[in-house]
């Protein structure tokens, strides 16, 4: 508890730098990452993160300086080059994008390692500290680092704000953007540049390997909650910043814990939760909806079967056993029991030892299904000119879907027919 208060109060300057730094990094990467995610370039981000390494090593070899500005410059150049090469390979050979990404990722990273180790062994300079780009150094953010992160974050946000409409078009429909006369190539260059910029700052917090998570995981999580780009950017940014906060809090309370991996764990937890439980697109909601649909179709089919059996005997007052139902339609026996139970609970059935019959409230429901089925058959045969033996399977599926509005329209179009194409009466 004391730790929590100390953390929140921000009294410790080190805590202040680390927390603000990771929050800004998390937010910038997440917002930019939304575009990478929408353009299906999640793993290009991973490749760029790896490819930055030789740029940093080269910048250091040439200038012998470890100033963050110099190293960032090298990182930007290498990142751009990697992105350019990935596109060139994909365009000018029969290799698929995934191969090009894997190739550039591993070769550039290998080159970077080779250069770093070579510098180390040759004694050409003290390269210690360069490996912060490999594994991140979130726990050791200094005031001058923080200034860079904040500056980069603000520049990114400003650019996204300025070019929001253009980037949106570029992400969803680049062909349309070029038809409109937008400078697509230049816009893509700007968007790629800010992606590289976000990655070059981000790897200092979480390291090369986990950078892809900083870009993509917040976008994945946010996507579960919204379909609007504006809200997507805001939610993803908040997730990113929040995870930065969580990561720095954990490494503050347990100092041996690495900040970067905990940021990623927090992001992943948010993403998993969102994928599972978001009300519209969540997996649980989806499974629940599927179950409800299956149940609806099952019970409607049972009602229909009972109606048919009654129709054959010209009385809806007779009781029919399970066996008769099974003979009439191929139900799964266990499913049939389940459906009958649900219907009895709704009081749409009356149950007796000899079997089941439709109740006062169940009969109109059964009539509705049969009516929809036969109306649709009518429509197919009259309007689509389909033969009578071709229309049943189609009606069998659509009867569960037709809404009251469509039913009304069908009735109107067909002028309340009495008999369906098989000469069976349509119940009203």
């Amino acid at each position, binding site marked *: 508890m004391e730790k929590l208060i100390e953390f929140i109060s921000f009294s410790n300057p080190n805590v202040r730098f680390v927390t603000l730094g990771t929050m800004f990094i998390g937010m910038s990467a997440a917002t930019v990452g939304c575009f990478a995610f929408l353009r*299906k370039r999640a793993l290009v981000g991973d490749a760029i993160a790896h490819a930055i390494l030789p740029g940093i090593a080269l910048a250091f070899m040439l200038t012998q300086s470890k100033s963050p500005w110099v190293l960032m410059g090298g990182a930007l150049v290498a990142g751009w080059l990697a992105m350019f090469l990935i596109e060139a390979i994909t365009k*000018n050979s029969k290799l698929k994008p995934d191969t090009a990404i894997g*190739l550039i990722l591993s070769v550039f990273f290998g080159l970077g390692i080779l250069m770093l180790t070579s510098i180390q062994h040759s004694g050409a300079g003290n390269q210690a500290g360069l490996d912060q780009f490999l594994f991140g150094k979130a726990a050791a953010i200094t005031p001058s680092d923080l200034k860079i992160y904040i500056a980069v974050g603000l520049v990114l946000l400003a650019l996204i704000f300025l070019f929001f409409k253009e980037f949106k078009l570029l992400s969803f429909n680049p062909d349309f953007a070029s038809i409109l006369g937008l400078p697509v190539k230049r816009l893509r260059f700007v968007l790629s540049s800010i992606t590289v910029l976000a990655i070059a700052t981000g790897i200092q917090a979480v390291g090369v390997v986990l950078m892809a998570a900083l870009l993509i995981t917040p976008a994945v999580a946010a996507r579960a909650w919204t379909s609007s780009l504006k809200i997507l950017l805001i939610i993803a940014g908040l997730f990113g910043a929040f995870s930065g906060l969580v990561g720095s809090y954990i490494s503050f309370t347990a100092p041996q814990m690495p900040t970067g991996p905990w940021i990623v764990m927090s992001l992943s937890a948010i993403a998993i939760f969102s994928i599972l439980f978001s009300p519209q697109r969540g997996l649980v909601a989806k499974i629940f909806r599927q179950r409800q649909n299956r149940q609806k179709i099952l019970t409607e089919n049972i009602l229909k079967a009972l109606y048919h059996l009654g129709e054959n005997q010209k009385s809806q007052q007779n009781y029919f056993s399970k066996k008769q139902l099974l003979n009439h339609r191929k139900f799964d026996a266990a499913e049939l029991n389940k459906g009958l139970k649900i219907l009895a609970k709704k009081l749409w059935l009356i149950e007796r030892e000899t079997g089941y019959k439709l109740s006062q409230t169940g009969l109109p429901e059964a009539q509705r299904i049969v009516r929809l089925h036969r109306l649709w058959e009518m429509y197919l045969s009259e309007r689509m000119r389909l033969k009578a033996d071709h229309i049943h399977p189609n009606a069998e599926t659509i009867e569960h879907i037709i809404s009251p509005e469509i039913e009304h329209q069908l009735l109107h179009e067909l002028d309340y027919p009495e008999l369906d194409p098989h000469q069976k009466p349509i119940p009203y």
Partner: protein
Amino acid sequence: MAALYIILTASVIAISCGLLGSFLILRKMALVGDAISHAVLPGIVLAFLISGSRDNIPMLIGAAVLGVITTLIIEMLQKKAGMQEDASIGITFTWLFALGVILITSYTGQVDLDQECVLYGEIAYVPLDTFNLSNGLSLGPRALWISGSVLLLIIAFILKGYKGLVLTTFNKDYAASIGISTAFWQLAFMSLVSLTTVVSFESVGAILVVALLVAPPAAAYLLSQNLKKMLWLSTLFGILTAVGGYYLALVLDGSIAGAMATFAGVLFAGAWGWSKLTSKHSGTIPVTDKKNISTFF
């Protein structure tokens, strides 16, 4: 002798990766190999903690199991949650890698591993860890024995299962229609990929594994019109990578794994240039040419 052992081990691993990588590329799964090579980290750490030793067998099993789990999670995210492929790969392997790093940090002292060794490995130490008989006779490096057995396993798998593997790679629908289980071959193939990744990365590091899985087969793919030629060329490029990379590292006095990855890139650049030069003369576009696709079977 040390140089020979290093080159030999690297070549064996390069051939294994090249053979499997060829199929990975053709199945458009090049990045799944990348994902697996990172995602096995928590498996290794857990196996390490459970078995309490750096013995190879539990580590191999732990990592291979996690590799297969990774592919299953990626597939599930795509099929059940409707997620796009790149995002599902990206979030899965980063999450597992982060978990691995956290596990390592939580049990420092008990786990003699760090992310540096995972990322770039140290093939230079391969000759030091030898496989000895009880009378003290050395039979060569342990890594060479293990990776050699894996290579034999892969060759046996490809020879025995050539038809199933090839059909499920090129035409899933056709394979399914003649009763070949796509799921079975996918699982068997991905298990081999995780096994190879794990075996290799202890000695050469994750990044060189990815380079060996992608670069030699990609170069071979550009220069061949049929699968058999592609497999042979991948093997050749794999060996060249091992030899060339070793001497490059010697000249520059740097990491051997890094140099091998770099050399693989150089080889690829050469193959790319060569394919551009030759295709200009013949003027055909291999991918859209129907005849070429059919000869690929």
